[in-house]
């Protein structure tokens, strides 16, 4: 086995008396899609934010590719190979789709203390950005201001920005939230196309999406992981059914 790309140990994060992460141990293997499911308020976003460096855990450690990254902030983790999408779409709304992705390319193309040349006409930024837009199916929408894209397109754009940083680990927080059926199907197909070449942690409420994409699933309830296993194992796990899936069924 190639081993774990990411190892989280004993992650704790409280908001006042609320334990949003209550001792989380979690591994992601190189190349796998590891889904995290759980009821509303279970602490999934809090967990992802600690992995991405947006939130500092109260206790615990995060190792990435063998290195302790617990103390690193989000920008440093991005440069190491983390990339995330947010549950509430987070893009540059007043920039075009192409500019959004070009910025992500720029962020990983050395320092930006370059004061004179117009960035928007730099092929070194535009060409890779355009290629990624084509890949996610937004090629025809490159020059549209992001705020004017449809909701589903905005979510695709956010994934495109994450991919433009050439991440080693992609953290997706409910990528199909609020999407219609067609949009969801397109996103699931796209994420499936990444399988094998991209390591993914996928938080998602849409169970069809989860069971079709995940290699492994972890179930998070009240800040604790109560089960980890293959989709088959999770489907039949009694505790999981009681705590979570039962609500849907």
């Amino acid at each position, binding site marked *: 086995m190639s081993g774990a790309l990411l190892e989280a140990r004993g992650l704790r994060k409280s908001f006042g008396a609320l334990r949003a992460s209550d001792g989380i141990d979690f591994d992601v293997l190189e190349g796998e899609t590891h889904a995290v499911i759980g009821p509303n308020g279970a602490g999934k976003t809090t967990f992802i934010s600690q992995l991405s460096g947006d939130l500092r855990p109260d206790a615990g450690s995060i190792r990435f590719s063998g290195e302790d990254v617990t103390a690193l*902030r989000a*920008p*440093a983790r*991005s440069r190491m190979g983390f990339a995330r999408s947010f549950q509430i779409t987070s893009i540059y709304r007043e920039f075009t789709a192409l500019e959004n992705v070009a910025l992500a390319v720029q962020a990983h193309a050395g320092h930006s203390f370059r004061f004179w040349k117009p960035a928007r006409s730099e092929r070194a930024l535009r060409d890779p950005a355009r290629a990624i837009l084509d890949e996610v199916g937004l090629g025809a929408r490159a020059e549209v201001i992001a705020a004017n894209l449809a909701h589903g397109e905005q979510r695709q754009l956010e994934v495109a920005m994450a991919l433009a940083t050439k991440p080693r680990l992609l953290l997706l927080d409910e990528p199909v939230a609020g999407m219609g059926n067609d949009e969801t199907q397109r996103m699931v197909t796209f994420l499936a196309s990444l399988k094998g070449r991209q390591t993914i942690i996928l938080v998602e409420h849409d169970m069809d999406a989860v069971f079709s994409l995940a290699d492994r699933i972890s179930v998070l309830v009240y800040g604790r992981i109560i089960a980890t296993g293959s989709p088959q194992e999770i489907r039949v796990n009694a505790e999981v059914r009681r705590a979570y899936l039962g609500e849907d069924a």
Partner: protein
Amino acid sequence: MPGRARILLWSAVIALLILLPPVAEALKQTFYIDLLRRVMIFAIAAASLNLILGYGGMISFGHAAYLGIGAYAVGILAFHGVDSGWMQWGTAIAASAVVAAVIGAVSIRTSGIYFIMITLAFTQMLYYLGMSLEVYGRDDGMRIKTHSQFWGLIDLADPVSFYYLVLALMLASLYLVHRLANSRFGMVLRAAKSNEARSRAIGFSPYLYRLAAFVIAGALCGLAGALLANHTAYISPDFMHWTRSGEIMFMVILGGIATTAGPLFGAFTLLVLETLLAGWTEHWQVYLGPLLILSVIFFRRGLAGILPGARDA
């Protein structure tokens, strides 16, 4: 890709500004040379603020500090017999940059209302420092007896030569800010203004870029201060009063935030309006306030927003 409208607009603006002195002299209205020179000096100050406020989203409510530092650098050196413009203006720019680095290093770690208050507080400190400088005239300020000297290359005592120098420097400043804003550097600033969480998530640490922008803006405004000292042949702590900071900020907003031409339009409109109203009634400030508020409500995107060719991204 400058559109035709933009080329037309800029050609017209530049032609008018070049033609103004001979026309004003022919009509014996040299007062306008003075007024427009002042407008263009403030356009430089406003352009520098536009870099951090308009493109960077940093609401600095203390930009008059650099106007003051630039002016005092000229005034103090002249007082001690240093007339060299190279020395004076160089000092003005360098001192403004250093002070901006200090203020920026502290304030950029904060945001929102705290950022506004800290930049304001620093400028008030400098204002009171100026008020307490016995040798340099305290709150009365002091006259500057000789203009900055440039090896006889240009005579700033000649209002028209000085006017054209200011025109050239203003155009250079607007162009500089334009280039900066569209470079990779500028894109980082604008992106962090648009969505800081997204910027951090893709790997930008905005702090150093913002600080650099803050220093560049301070230095450029320091130059405006040096010009202003020569323009008025006079310095006073009033250059750093918080209402002055407000005025510069207003020029940026009125002209159109994050636009190349906005600072010039804003400075022009505000200063010309002030002059007109002051000639009409001594209570001109009472009328100016509401007029400005109305204009901002009416032209949401500033004056640059209503002129084809000025609404650059």
